[in-house]
């Protein structure tokens, strides 16, 4: 087990290095530079600026320096966010995005597993059809359309909620709803399918035959076994939610990491682009790793799987 985990952790390093290199090349391949886009600068000022950020050196050297600094925990200075260290900008944004994403994750896991279990237990009844109908629709409406419809309804028609912003619980309602609809639907669909598979299992019949009450059968015998595939879904969903959605954050003026990412691309804030890309990649890779390790704890066959 330890060997498996170690192997997986070590396999992350080349992936992240490759992502760092690709990001670095890609963002320098984009036309445009940090100086002179929205603030026309004289050539000497531009040259000074480039020298200050080390942009006058050869690319491979810049990349080398970046990696050395990265290893020491220094992510550089943002050229767009008023010379602030990228680490600070990221930390501020991450706090907001992680709170928002965490709330959305809590909502989607609770609602998703709940709906999935209920519709599996009441399969082929009105409750099941209603839930399936809801999850099918929620799974196919993109977050920005849902967000806009929420705005139309709650702000435009009912005047119940503020248009956007961040700080009060009221401001969190719409972004959480917009973010959690799709994962809720997705988790509910997987939970339902997975619960249905356990229904006919021998151990469930045995548990019932032992005279256990229904609650224990459902929670301890069925749900526990049904949760592994659900867990596999939750991993990537958690990674995506916690790192922030740029569209939802932009739509509801939430000062999170998604918006910071989005805003740093146009002014070619290289340090910010690098850091946010890496953060996103780390989140995805770590979430998958956690899921795989937990899966390996459940199922010893995975440890011997060729993948990984």
């Amino acid at each position, binding site marked *: 087990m330890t060997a498996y985990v170690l192997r997986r952790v070590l*396999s992350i390093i*080349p*992936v*992240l290095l*490759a*992502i760092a290199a*690709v*990001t670095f090349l*890609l*963002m320098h*391949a*984009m*036309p445009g530079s940090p100086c002179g886009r929205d603030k026309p600068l004289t050539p000497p000022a531009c040259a000074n600026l480039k020298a200050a950020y080390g942009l006058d050196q050869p690319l491979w050297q810049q990349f080398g320096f970046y990696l050395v600094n990265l290893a020491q925990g220094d992510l550089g200075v943002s050229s767009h966010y008023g010379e602030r260290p990228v680490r600070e900008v990221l930390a501020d944004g991450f706090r907001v995005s992680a709170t928002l994403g965490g709330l959305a994750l809590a909502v989607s896991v609770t609602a998703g597993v709940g709906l999935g279990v209920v519709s599996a237990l009441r399969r082929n009844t009105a409750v099941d059809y209603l839930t399936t109908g809801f999850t*099918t629709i929620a*799974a*196919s*409406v*993109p*977050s*920005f359309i849902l967000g*806009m*419809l929420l*705005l*139309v309804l709650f*702000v*435009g*028609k009912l005047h119940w909620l503020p248009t956007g912003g961040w700080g009060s619980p009221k401001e969190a309602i719409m972004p959480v709803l917009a973010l959690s609809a*799709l*994962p809720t*639907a*997705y988790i509910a*669909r997987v939970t339902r399918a997975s619960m249905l598979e356990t229904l006919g299992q021998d151990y469930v019949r045995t548990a019932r035959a032992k005279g256990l009450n229904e609650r224990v059968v459902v929670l301890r015998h069925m749900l526990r076994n049904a949760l*592994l*595939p659900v867990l*596999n*879904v939750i*991993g*990537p*969903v958690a990674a*995506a939610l916690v790192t*922030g*959605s*740029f*569209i*939802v954050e*932009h739509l509801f003026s939430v000062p999170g990491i998604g918006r910071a*990412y989005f805003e740093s*691309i*146009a002014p070619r804030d290289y340090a910010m682009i690098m850091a946010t*890309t890496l953060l996103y*990649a780390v989140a995805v*890779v770590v979430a998958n790793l956690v899921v795989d390790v937990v*899966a*390996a704890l*459940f*199922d010893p*066959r*995975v440890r011997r*799987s060729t*993948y990984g």
Partner: protein
Amino acid sequence: MAEVIAHATPAYATEPPRVEGPRHTALRKLVRNRPAVVGMVVIGVFGLLALLAPWVDRYDPSAWQGAGTWKGPSADFWLGTDDGGRDMYSRLVHGARISLTVGVLSQVIAVAIGLTVGLSAGVGGRWLDSLLMRLTDVAYAFPDLLMLIVLVTIMGSSMTMVVLAIGFVSWTTIARVVRTQALALRDEEFVLAARALGASRWQIARRHLLPNVLAPVIVTATFGVPAAIFAEAALVYIGVGLAGPSWGRIILESFDASHPEHAVIPCAVVALTMLSFTLIGDGLRDALDPRSSTRRALPKAEQARVRRDTPPGEERLAA
């Protein structure tokens, strides 16, 4: 693949029992799936409107019609007009042309890349497998949106480039599904038999693995179409999308704080399209029976990985 006998032969039948191939069985299952049929009808109608856009539109989709902005539905303007006084119906019809093309063609690209990578990893031996899968890991963990923005910024946002770029960020799921399938099939008797007869790796991949991995690939690609339409909309949202009236552009331009109700119709059209693709995807998944293909000889967590990799599709690009 084994032939499947469709129905028990009725006692009065004099003709030999009807035997139908797996494709027929799948097709029959699909047309019996009511939600999937509804989805196909909706996509069929939208597809037809898209194809015939220049003939079924009522006005120039991009021109001011002289009736004022933000008009409600009327006999002249079936679905009203937008912020530029343009006819919403004509815009949506032309939008269907653009968005459905982006959705379908980008998935064709994704399938081509995904099949190539997945099959090569599946039959290519340990070294190639691990190289290609690391490459897939990198592409998977890389933020799609950044890749899209960069590709479109460098190459320009023409239809070709947008289709290529979206295809280029959408292949990882297909590659993983194909590889997992190929590995599971590699030790099946029919593959061993082919190898014993001297078939090359390429022949095995093409003749024996490809037909057997197609089902989950088609399902994944079906879920990928709405994701691609969504990705194009996201590009418009950022300001690097297609210039023409794609559905994404129509929605974003019809969204106005003082006339919020005008966003409802285009939102509904796009949501209906995405819903239809989801229903078709669900129907295809059931019809092509994942139990006999996707889950063959896989440990539970690996099955789950396959399932994880065949999502409704959107949540990665949503991030």
